[in-house]
């Protein structure tokens, strides 16, 4: 997770993609960790997700 920090340039290219889209999507997830956390948030219960967050923070 820690090694997965994305570069500012990667965010910048997502902004370019959004700017060139007609129309742009409501939201763009950037980075594997953002996608993973969002996916888990959708599929897990609050208790399961709290456990995951604690695991990440204690890593």
């Amino acid at each position, binding site marked *: 997770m820690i090694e*997965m920090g994305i570069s500012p340039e990667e*965010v910048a290219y997502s902004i370019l993609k959004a700017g060139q889209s007609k129309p742009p999507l409501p939201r*763009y997830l950037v980075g594997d960790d953002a996608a993973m956390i969002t996916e888990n948030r959708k599929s897990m219960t609050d208790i399961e997700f709290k456990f995951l967050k604690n695991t990440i923070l204690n890593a």
Partner: protein
Amino acid sequence: MLSLIPKVALVSDSSAGIGHETALVLSRNGYYTYAGIRDVTLSRELSRVAKEEKLPLRIVQLDVNSDSSVNLGVKTVLREQNRVDLLVNNLGYILLGCFEDISMDEMKAQFETNFYGTVRTAQAVLPVMRKHRSGIIINISSIAGTIGFPVSVFVSSQFAVEGLSESMRFELEPFGIHVSIIEAGMVRITNFPNSMVIANNAKKSSSPYSKITRKLTDWQYRTND
């Protein structure tokens, strides 16, 4: 028919990190880009790259915490281009610390930059976007805008940006204006003192939250190794 007029972009907080890279990427890809920078003495590197690559990029003084600075900055863009096609509202900064450790002044400062900064620039460009019945506003948030973490006030400011962006999207669509949110995960940060601030009480070893704050601070440092 393809338009030969380059699109005009305004990017807030372009002195480093995401804003700096966004200003460069947009100007390399057909946008006449105005890089908003609070302290223009921090624009040397951006100006150097723009000059070296002959990019259509201009520095404009823009402090998102100030009504007069934002209005003047946008006025400069409109005087020269008469339009803004793309506004990129940068993230602001991360206030590290748990809720009880953060003073009201620190909370207000966090919201002033992260939330009201976004509000200010968006309100300044909307009249011209409505006039042209076209425009895109991209608000940079983070995954912390959707999920709670032990950085309560930063997370709250990001939730506020999320709610604002979703609502603006509804309100502005009839005028041909689109609003998007960028939800980034962990981003490597190059300008630590400007992009991350530790609340005063959170720095104290006597804080009941010192363990968790230290863990988060170490985590951020390690992420940026």
